[in-house]
């Protein structure tokens, strides 16, 4: 998977490194601001109220 992505990044080495960093940052941001806030209420960690 990682090898496949690396081989398909266009451009010379320095450009590929930049592209890889942008990809990682993008995916982390997507997780932090979209996926985790959506998933969190469905997980049993943070219920603090009594019913």
């Amino acid at each position, binding site marked *: 998977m990682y*090898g496949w992505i690396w081989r398909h990044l266009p451009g010379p080495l320095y450009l590929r490194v930049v592209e890889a960093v942008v990809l990682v940052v993008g995916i982390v941001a997507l*997780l932090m601001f979209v996926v985790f806030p959506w998933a969190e209420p469905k997980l049993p960690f943070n*219920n*603090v109220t*009594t019913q």
Partner: protein
Amino acid sequence: MIPRVEDDYDDEYYDDDYYDEDEKDALPPESLARKTVRGVGEALITMGLVVLLFVVYEVYVTDLLSAEKQQEATAALDSEWGSNTVTPPPADPNRQSKLNLIEGKAFAKMYIPVFGNDWKFSVVEGTTDKHLEIGPGHYKDTAQPGEAGNFAIAGHRVGKGAPFNDLDLLESCNAVVVQTQTQWFVYRVLPMSSEVAGWASNPKAKQPACAGVAPLSTTLGDAYAKTVGQEIVLPTQGEVIAPIPHQTAAAVPADKQARLLTLTTCHPRFSDRQRLIVHAIETKSYPVADGFVPPEMTEG
């Protein structure tokens, strides 16, 4: 003879090494099994990283997001308090006009001096996830600050500002100060269940901080026998925030109920298996005045 043989061996060894590296440059044939094993391994590593990231999100990122919301709520509250014409506090400091509580809006500030003077949160109305992201939330339909009954507040213990992170460290007689637009209310944590029996002979009971604090079963009767400083209950035990905790059928008329404060959070930390409950009783109240800060605020 012998050294020469060793030399030969060494040469051969290095030759092998070079040979191996040549081999590495030419990749071995990609078999399907090889690809599959690598794919599964990479997927597992990725999932592990995602889980680690989730922990970082829960413990740190939600703090940052909530700090911003808490700040906004506090700013809104401050401007409301600053601009509103203040209705003077009623003559009897314990009787007060009802606050107009709007869901999701802050209506009071809360301080726990033993946690340090930087421990302050604006309390919002409502206890849904959205409300608790802003700060500690007041259970709708429970008493208001200073009212007879049970002023009940829920708060996060991990992440989202974690207002109630250290709730388990509160000891009997520790002060929890609540400020509304017109009044300060000082609540003190009730004696723990282990302290109830020997409270009268406990030297702690004579400390000035414990003035007005005594096991409720001795001062208010059996209806309050289960109301102690700290308890750990199941999430389904909603009766801990009843006007008289654990008494769902009101056994005492409203005007004879104690003025309690109840704080709830999750327990153990990082789990929602149980709830940590802290009960406190109002011992003092002061009208809000310019430049006046209750002496209890400097405790700790």
